[in-house]
């Protein structure tokens, strides 16, 4: 049995219903420490409900959980002492400046010399690139600036866990890139649990993902495992030139179980299913490249795009957990 010390979030049958409608159905989730955990699902899947339950903003109908080892129902205040949270549509006091907002939030966690608190505030503003707008009232902030302020306020207490609800939603590409960069910078300091439906972002920064649909957890796995898929070991080759001789040679190999070929313009794409990954890794490319009539444009282990995996799981009704 794995120690609870390894997990920053653990839930056990966590459920929530609103007026008889089940928003979250018996969620069993484990989030490892020091991971960037992407929590995916279509709108209304129950992602925000899960976050609110973890933070004590709402109470579970049944089940429970622990965040940083603290019970989410009975030790909610202690949970919030170790967590930083960015809401989906964050709202702050608009008359305050970014610096005052951080100072206010820091006041819930620390006391000590004013200069030290100011140093921490300035350091956090710099981390999210808001140092030049620190003394402007929030009411004039753009969506991207508000989102960065949201991350800054969540990070001001150096939390063990950052919970971010759609951190890059409603941002333009540049804003999204900035937010992802900030998340990547923070990963060495804290665990990050974040909800999103922007799959590109997940693929860029996450190491583990879970997929929620209709309030139910339908997949949870390391990202790489999910992208490789469950349809065997497949290598993809993109070739130029006459492939017929190479095709015969490769398909006769004992560790090759199937080759599917598709031609498009001057290029042919092979998907080579193999039974021995180690041999395929060392020999497959060599055996193709030795054909002087062929040029290898691309070679690698086949990976699905996350979007492909997500849609196949969510739409295909695949209920088995990975």
């Amino acid at each position: 049995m794995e120690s609870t010390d390894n997990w920053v979030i653990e839930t056990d049958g966590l459920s929530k219903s609103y007026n008889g409608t089940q928003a979250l159905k018996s969620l069993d989730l484990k989030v490892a420490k020091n991971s960037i955990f992407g929590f995916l699902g279509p709108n209304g899947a129950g992602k925000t409900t899960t976050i609110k339950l973890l933070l004590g903003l709402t109470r579970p109908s049944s089940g429970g959980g622990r965040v940083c080892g603290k019970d989410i129902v009975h030790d909610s205040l202690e949970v919030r002492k170790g967590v930083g949270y960015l809401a989906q549509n964050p709202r702050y006091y608009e008359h305050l400046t970014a610096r005052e907002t951080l100072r206010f939030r820091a006041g819930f966690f620390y006391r000590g010399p004013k200069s030290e608190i100011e140093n921490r505030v300035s350091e956090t503003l710099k981390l999210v690139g808001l140092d030049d707008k620190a003394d402007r009232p929030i009411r004039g902030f753009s969506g991207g600036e508000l989102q960065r302020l949201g991350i800054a306020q969540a990070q001001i207490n150096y939390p063990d866990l950052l919970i971010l609800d759609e951190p890059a939603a409603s941002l333009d590409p540049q804003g999204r890139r900035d937010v992802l960069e900030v998340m990547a910078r923070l990963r060495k300091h804290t665990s990050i649990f974040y909800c999103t439906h922007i799959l590109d972002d997940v693929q860029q920064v996450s190491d583990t993902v879970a997929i929620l649909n209709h309030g139910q957890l339908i997949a949870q796995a390391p990202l790489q495992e999910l992208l490789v898929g469950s349809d065997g070991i497949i290598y993809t080759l993109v070739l130029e030139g006459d492939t017929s001789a190479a095709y015969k040679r490769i398909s006769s190999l004992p560790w090759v179980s199937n080759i599917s070929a598709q031609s498009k313009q001057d290029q042919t794409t092979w998907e080579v299913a193999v039974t021995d990954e180690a041999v395929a890794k060392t020999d497959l490319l060599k055996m193709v490249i030795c054909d002087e009539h062929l040029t290898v444009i691309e070679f690698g282990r086949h990976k699905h795009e996350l979007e492909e995996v997500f849609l196949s799981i969510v739409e295909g009704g695949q209920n088995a957990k990975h």
Partner: protein
Amino acid sequence: MPSTNPLQPVMEHGWICGFRNMVRKENSLWWSTRKWWVQSLVWLFILNGFIALILWIIPALDKSPSVPASTELLQVFVTTLEGGFAMIGVMVLAQGLVVNEKKFGTAAWIMSNPVSRSSFILSKLVGNGWGIFIIVVLLQSLVCYFQLSLKAHFLPNPVPFILGIALVCLHMLFYLTLGIMLGTLFNSTGPVVGISIGLFIGLTILSQVLAGIAPWLAGILPDRITQLAGIVTAGQALPAAWPIPVSIAVILSVIFILIAIFRFGREEF
């Protein structure tokens, strides 16, 4: 992140967790924004403007040297101005304290921090109670007393005035706690201010009606406190039953706050 620094973790736990920082925030809304001087000017105009009208402007226009006695004017200030206009002002100020935070989403943000629900409610009471006391009561009372002293060329006995103002403060506390409680029960400001003002007017009418048929009942209503404030300001002896409406107002204020904490504790964000 840096592990050695002179910052110490805040050691608040349980029902009081986050209280100090929340009170600081509520205070800053009064004292670090333009609210303090806007409110000061508004109440100076309404309350002391009325006193100035009677003391200086009307006599000057009428060319008449006669003005009401200082005691009489202090009574008007305590019962009609502080006990009437300012009381309605308290209700208006209290209407959005909780509702606006729920409506705009800032309450959800606050509650994602280590802040207990009771600290949130109590900070509203303490921060705003203090702001109202300083600006609406203390400052205006001092200016009123100064105006009267200037006109009368002597200092009226301040003790009855202070006692009268203290009773009005209790009455204000009653309506402030009522407004906070209603804010936890409703999601818009309309019912909060409507019920408060309705109760204030209703109790005033009811105490007048009851005065003829059941005076003992009229004497225990919270509305009676302002009348008691008028009596004590005039330097007269309080009726023997004075502790009853005072106790009832205190008890109801405590009950309102307990209900507010209970209801806000069950709020889901």
